[in-house]
């Protein structure tokens, strides 16, 4: 068990180091930060001085090493754009993204499972057909477009919801929350729908397919024969057996909700880490880009590691000591 975990952790660290290396090798193609930091009346001497000062004249491997050296001490450098520690900025922006991801995830889960059950049980009804057709739109329309359409409908035409920003936020310790004010909650609705729609349709279709599968099983047929009420069959027996794969998929999707919040955050000017990353690319703010990419890769690698360990706990076959067996 321990050897397995150590091996997996070791592999994860290797993956992280490699991701960082690839990221750093690509920063030079993103552009030159100096052009954004100095005005048009600068001289070549100014450019050279700043380049040396920022260490941009050194090969990317050296830059990467410097970054790692500082990062292990918890120092992610200073943002070129804001002149403030990157760690501080990321912490400031993280609550916005996490709250958005949480609400979208919840929406996707509740909406997806509910609609999935409905369309599975009433699969011949017109309502189920409408939902299935609409869900195709949810899967195929790009997030960007959905966001803009929602803004035009609910902000411009109806005037019900704000088109951008996070509304009023309350500070609790270091955490800024939009859950406690009316404007904060209103501001959450459109971005959460935009971000969660794709996951919701995905979960809905998954639940529907699984449920239809389960409903064909013999034990359901026997349950019906025994005269158990339809309600109990659907929710107690069928749903329970449907949820196993759904939970696996949802866990994996959680990471992508945070990572793909970038587009939603840009459309709604949502002050989270995704928007920060987009701004950083535009400004060639290398420290912010590096820290964000590392954060996202740590998150994905971490989720995978946990999943691996869960498999280990669930699947007894993995527990067999490979060397001892000898077939």
């Amino acid at each position: 068990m321990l050897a397995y975990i150590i091996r997996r952790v070791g592999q994860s660290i290797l993956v992280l180091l490699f991701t960082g290396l690839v990221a750093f090798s690509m920063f030079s193609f993103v552009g030159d930060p100096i052009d954004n930091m100095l005005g048009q009346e600068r001289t070549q001497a100014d450019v050279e001085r700043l380049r040396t000062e920022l260490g941009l004249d050194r090969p990317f491997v050296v830059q990467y090493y410097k970054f790692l050296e500082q990062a292990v001490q918890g120092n992610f450098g200073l943002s070129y754009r804001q002149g403030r520690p990157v760690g501080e900025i990321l912490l400031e922006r993280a609550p916005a993204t996490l709250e958005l991801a949480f609400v979208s995830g919840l929406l996707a889960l509740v909406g997806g499972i509910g609609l999935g059950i409905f369309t599975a049980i009433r699969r011949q009804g017109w309502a189920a057909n409408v939902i299935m057709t609409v869900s195709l739109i949810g899967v195929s329309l790009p997030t960007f477009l959905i966001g803009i359409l929602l803004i035009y409908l609910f902000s411009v035409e109806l005037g019900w919801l704000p088109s951008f920003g996070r509304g009023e936020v309350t500070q609790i310790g270091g955490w800024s929350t939009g859950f406690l004010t009316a404007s904060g909650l209103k501001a959450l609705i459109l971005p959460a729908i935009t971000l969660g729609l794709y996951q919701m349709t995905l979960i809905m279709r998954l639940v529907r397919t699984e449920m239809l599968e389960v409903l064909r099983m013999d034990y359901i047929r026997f349950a019906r024969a025994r005269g158990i009420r339809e309600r109990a069959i659907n929710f107690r027996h069928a749903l329970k057996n449907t949820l196993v794969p759904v939970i696996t998929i949802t866990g994996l999707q959680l990471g992508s909700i945070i990572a793909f919040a970038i587009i939603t955050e840009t459309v709604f000017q949502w002050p989270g880490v995704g928007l920060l990353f987009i701004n950083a690319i535009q400004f060639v703010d290398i420290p912010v880009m590096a820290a964000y990419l590392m954060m996202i890769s740590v998150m994905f690698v971490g989720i995978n590691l946990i999943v691996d360990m869960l498999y280990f706990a669930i699947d007894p076959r993995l527990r067999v000591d490979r060397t001892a067996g000898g077939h």
Partner: protein
Amino acid sequence: MKTAWTLAALCALAVPANAETFRWASQTDPNTMDPHAGNSAPVLGFLNNVYEGLVRRDRDMQIEPALATSWEPIGDGEGWRFTLREGVTFHDGADFTAEDVVFSYERASSPEADTASWFSSVTEVMAPDDYTVEMRTSAPNPIFPDSIANWMIMDKGWAEANDVTRPNIEQGNYATLNTNGTGAYRVAERDPALKTVLVPFENWWGEDRGNVTEAIFTPIDNSATAVAALLSGEVDMINPVPVQDADRLDQAEGVELKRGVEARVMMFGFSQDKDTLVGGDGSVEGNPFKDPRVRRAVAHAINVPAILQTIMRGSAEPAAQLVSPAMSGYSESLSERPALDVEAARALLAEAGYPDGFRFLLKCPNDRYINDDSVCQATVAMLAQIGLEAQLDAIPVRNYWPELRADEYDMYLLGWSPGTFDAEHPFRFLVHTPQENIGTWNFGGYSNPRVDELIPAIQSEIDPEARQAMLDEVAGIVQEDMVYVPLYVQPLLWGTATNIDLTQREDNFFILRWVDVR
């Protein structure tokens, strides 16, 4: 419950009866609040509301007194003497005196600053008394007061107390986030890249100020979102409005499109010091763009009125020189653009030895200027009519300047906004032979000894007529050699709610003092 009501009543009392909140959005957040650490339009435009210079520009871009009440040349062009305004205080209450001006000169001209080039001709700055400042220049500099309108004065005591006597571009410091100017508004809240709140400075010396009591600036990256926010009434002003949305805003209710022209002239430049084409296919020898006739052929082939009609939706003015007619030093006699004449263009190409045209690389940014990549696409089609096969490479601006510096182009798009609002500015940066501190944006490497001789002479000529004559001569040479093909003056498109009165200044600075909420 009772305390809550009392609190609410108190809050209501604290806000003046006619509180006017003004909310505006723009694409870029000023990346610093330090007026000497950023020499870019977003930074200087924003800080013009908070800090002030010795002089400032009025609604028509003319210089008028600000922290200096008057100024005069010293002796025979040895420098300039400024008489300072008395009774001015900084936002923190400190008095404004000559000492602050001298300090701000040292700070803004230090190697750490991004504004040092404004002071390249200054040799010494002295304060004979508390309200007089003398700035000595190495050579006569007639437009010096014009060139320092964006040089903002910082309080010496405040800078020392907060350890920000020098700007720090790469690491930031206290002045990156905090301000202490003398301007009409002070920063009440600063959340970088998210929100900045300005409130009127009660002890401001001036009177020309609108009725805004609180101004909230939010950067909105996505232009579609910005337009939606304006239409839904969540913001009162956006800048810029995407050209394709201009007609819609014109028709929408409750909002208004305000059109103006910017000081920025769009032009095509050419590689002129290389011996081969980067994007050639080997069908022609050498670099055809070295030949002025080829560059002139390009000028005759581009249908500028059509570009303005279709891509700019009629919002821009054609340009004939490197500056717009509104700039000082514009050459009135040279205001004729090369006419659209495909036959003449073909004839010029044939005369230069390229009757069948050639293939080359056209480099353009796709997120720097208004509809820049569309303009370049249209140009490709227009040049095809005279047999020139342009390979268009449109890239984000963050990669654009490095590519131009690496000579990865044969022809390129450039927009230039003269910082001094004088015709000499583009000559200095775009036409002078490239050197360490001059000709720094002359990517093509055009070099003309006569031009190089005239530019320093223009810079130190005091007599306006003699100066204009030399400016005319350089403008004539630039036009004759077709160093650049000027296209048009970029439009200013701002969208506002209908109850907002404001002034669009040609440098695209948004001046909050001129905003009135009706």
